[in-house]
């Protein structure tokens, strides 16, 4: 039982990391109907930026404090992500405004390759450590309830906390601020939003910036846990089923979908894996998403897709 709970918790933590990446997908899709295949590349790019900057800043300025160096690195990385967002809107999205979904999807695929190449050229392609001061030791919880207690990773707990704060901030942003309202209007109906004077292009830059920050936070947490390396981009591929499950237009869906996938992967690997030779994690998320696609394409919380004749 304790083992089951441990696996469950481990799955929840892993799932939460997926949710962070999925959040970026949902944000961009909600506001512009574009599915951003490049989200994973953005996570890697942001993580690389922050990791290398955290190295270079102390070297360049002789700063001693790790915390200040990290904060500066975060800030500069955020600015870099703003720049990336602005460039993507300017150079790519603006020219593809009326194209259909598949064209935009393939364009974001191209962007992801481009970002991968540029990121590695500028920042390097080794594995980099990203030390943001996360405690690495695990703690034993619930020792009174279960014999020996349950192993919980402190780092994962902090990550969950950061993710929760991010989601809360985003909710406040969307619900309470004027920009957030405008974003929701654009997500609802581009033309109507335009006709009341909302500047579409600027809104899209803002959305991609927010997605960029989300990517940065996700990259920071992933990078701290696993080290910053090229394989981070495959994480994005794992996050795709999350948005299918949760619904492409739902922020809570991204969170819950991520948790379900995380738990499902871990549990199926541990309990079903031995029967089929292991490695279920490779396809579990996708086959689950496939099931949803066949019976409930809009996911758990998304809006139904309607085709007008």
């Amino acid at each position: 039982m304790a083992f089951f709970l441990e696996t469950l918790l481990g799955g929840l933590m892993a799932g939460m990391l997926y949710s962070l990446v999925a959040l970026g997908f949902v944000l961009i899709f909600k506001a512009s109907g574009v599915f951003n295949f490049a989200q994973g590349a953005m996570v890697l790019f942001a993580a690389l930026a922050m990791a290398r900057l955290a190295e270079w800043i102390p070297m360049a300025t002789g700063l001693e404090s790790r915390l200040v160096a990290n904060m500066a690195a975060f800030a500069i990385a955020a600015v870099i992500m703003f720049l990336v967002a602005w460039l993507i809107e300017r150079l790519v999205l603006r020219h593809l405004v009326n194209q259909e979904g598949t064209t935009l999807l393939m364009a974001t695929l191209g962007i992801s390759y481009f970002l991968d190449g540029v990121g590695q050229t500028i920042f390097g392609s080794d594995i980099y450590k990203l030390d943001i001061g996360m405690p690495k030791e695990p703690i034993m919880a619930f020792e009174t309830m279960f014999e020996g207690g349950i192993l919980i990773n402190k780092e994962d707990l902090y990550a969950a906390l950061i993710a929760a704060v991010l989601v809360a901030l985003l909710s406040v942003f969307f619900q309470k601020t004027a920009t957030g309202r405008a974003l929701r209007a654009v997500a609802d109906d581009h033309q109507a939003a335009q006709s009341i004077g909302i500047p579409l292009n600027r809104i899209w830059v803002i959305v991609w910036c927010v997605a960029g920050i989300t990517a940065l936070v996700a990259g920071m947490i992933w990078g701290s846990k696993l080290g910053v390396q090229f394989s981070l981009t495959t994480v994005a591929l794992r996050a795709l089923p999350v948005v299918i499950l949760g619904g492409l237009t739902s922020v809570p869906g991204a969170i819950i979908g991520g948790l379900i996938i995380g738990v499902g992967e871990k549990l199926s690997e541990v309990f079903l894996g031995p029967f089929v030779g292991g490695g279920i994690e490779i396809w579990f998320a996708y086959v689950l998403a496939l099931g949803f696609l066949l019976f409930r394409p809009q996911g758990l919380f998304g809006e139904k897709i309607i085709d007008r004749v």
Partner: protein
Amino acid sequence: MFYRENGQFKTSYRADQQIFPIAQDRWAVLALVAAAFVLVPMLASDYMFRAILIPFLIMALAALGVNVLVGYCGQISLGSGAFMAVGAYAAFNVYVRVPGMPLLLTLILGGLCASAFGILFGLPSLRVKGLYLAVATLAAQFFSDWMFLRIKWFTHDSPSGSVSVSGLQLAGFPIEDPISKYLLCLSVLVLLALMAKNLVRSAIGREWMAIRDMDVAAAVIGIRPMYAKLTAFAVSSFIVGVAGALWGFVYLGAWEPAAFSVDQSFRLLFMVIIGGMGAIMGCFFGAGFIVILPIALNQFLPVLGGVFGISISTAGIAHAELIIFGALIVWFLIVEPHGIARLWAVGKQKMRLWPFPH
């Protein structure tokens, strides 16, 4: 003034409907095919065969399959690598388990298995399209990755996880040296390309394009979306499966599942986008581009770097490849969504009028 159609009248529908209605085109293509069969084996070096020509031919074939599905029928597919894998492993199993199996039959059976796999994973296309379909095809990709990694039966219980074939022969002639491998691939490509071209200009091709352009209207004029989409998946996967079998048997010789990973799927999609979606010619342009680019970069970039005093590592070249691919995909999608094939067609139009501007 060389490319005129003056004097070329068509007096029958048959003549009007042929694949190359302009005589100059017909001669050019026949000459090209003849040169490919006769001249190239005489002139090309072993390196050219191994590194450029053979991969080009097989990739062009795979791109042909992907184009049928994505370009003509409008069903996005990110799982082509999986179809190649099924073709390769199915052919492998037939080859090693059935002694004396003729090579062509092996390839065909590999294609048919890939076709069945394609129909199965094409079923979601009846419910969803666009991004959602892309996710479904990715499911096929990752499932296939796992299948050939973990299920021992597929790899004939190979201890290392990789498989190999040897001793290929066609009707008694051994297929060992580069020239015979090249001719085998070329023949398969020409045959399947011809059949594919026939399909896309027939009723089924029109059904595919109707589904691509507007599937609701297609249903109303009596086209069955299910039949059209599933046949697109079937035909496409067959071609891609045969290409996969050739890739494993002829090009690689020995392979493991990673040879058909999601990167391969993306590469094929890029070939189709850059080369030209919905154009058979596009497959050749796209495959040529993607096969030659890394080699060109390998030769060219260090030289360029030397001019500026920068030394470029192999990793740097790999990154440059990513940057150029990505940029080109975006550029083509913005400027010419129909790829190089459209640029080629426009160029030919201008040639027909030259030296007049319009």
